[in-house]
C-alpha cells in the first residue's frame, strides 16, 4: 500500500516548493511570481494533484464534511471547489485546543490544458474528496503502428 502512495512521498519538486514557501515566509514574496490563484500553504483543505496519460486526479483532504455542502465546478481547465465545514461545539464544555478548520472554504486549481470538462467524476470517502478528470481523447499519446 505504501508503494501505491509513493508518488507523493517527499519528491524533489515538492521540496523545492516547500523551500520557496519558507523563503516567502522569511523574506516576503520573492522575485519569483506566484500563481495568481495559488493559496498560501496551510490553506484548507490541502490538495494533491497527480497525473497519468489518461486522467488528472485531484485529492482534497477535507475530513468531516457533508458531501452535499460541496460545490465542485470546472470551467475549461480551472477547477474550483467550495464548501463549508461546520465544527459542532459541545455545549457547556471548556475548550483547550481548537485547531481544526471551521467555516467556509474555496480553492481554485489550474489543471493541465488538455482535460475534458465534460468527463469529471467525484467521490468522497474517509474524508478525502477525489476528483478524476479525463484527458481529451485527441491529445492522449497514441502508439503508432509501423506496417
Amino acid at each position: 500500500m505504501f508503494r501505491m502512495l509513493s508518488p507523493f512521498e517527499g519528491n524533489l519538486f515538492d521540496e523545492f516548493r516547500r523551500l520557496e514557501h519558507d523563503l516567502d515566509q522569511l523574506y516576503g514574496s520573492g522575485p519569483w511570481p506566484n500563481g495568481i490563484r495559488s493559496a498560501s500553504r496551510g490553506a484548507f483543505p490541502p490538495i494533491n494533484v497527480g497525473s497519468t496519460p489518461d486522467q488528472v486526479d485531484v485529492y482534497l483532504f477535507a475530513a468531516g464534511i457533508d458531501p452535499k455542502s460541496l460545490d465542485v465546478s470546472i470551467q475549461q481547465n480551472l477547477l474550483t471547489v467550495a464548501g463549508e465545514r461546520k465544527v459542532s461545539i459541545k455545549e457547556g464544555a471548556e475548550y483547550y485546543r481548537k485547531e481544526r478548520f471551521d467555516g467556509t472554504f474555496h480553492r481554485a486549481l489550474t489543471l493541465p490544458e488538455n482535460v475534458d470538462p465534460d468527463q469529471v467524476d467525484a467521490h468522497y470517502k474517509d474524508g478525502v474528496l477525489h476528483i478524476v478528470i479525463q484527458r481529451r481523447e485527441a491529445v492522449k499519446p497514441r502508439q503508432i503502428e509501423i506496417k
Partner: protein
Amino acid sequence: MTEKKDLEKQAPKAVQQTRQDERVLRPQVDICEDSSGITLQADMPGVPKDGLDIQVNKDNLSIEGVAAIAMPENMEPLYADISVTRYQRNFSLSSELDATKVDASLKDGVLTLHIPKREELKPRKIEVRAS
C-alpha cells in the same frame, strides 16, 4: 533463488519504513472537557477504520493512522500539499482520567475520542445547607 528474491523485496521496504518513521503528519485537534470527561477530535482524512491505531500506555495517549488513498498506477505528482501518509500525535493524560474506558469512533476522516473521568473523581456539587 527464492531466498534472494525475498531479500530483494525486503530491502526497499525497510528503507521506506525508516523514512516513514521520520516524517509524520500532526493531525489537527480540538480538545474540550466537561463534567463527564475529555473529548478529543482529530482530523485524519484518508484514514480508514483499519488504518487507525490508538494506544494508551500508562499516561500516554498515542494516536496513529495511515491514510489509504486509491491512486492509479504510474501516476506522477503535479502538486502536493501533503507528502506524508502517516498521522501521529501523542498526548499525556492525567491520573483522574480513566484510560481503560476510552471510546473511539471514526467518521469521514474525523476521529472522536472520549476519555471519561474516573467515577470516584467526577466533580461533585457540594450542597451548602442553611443552618
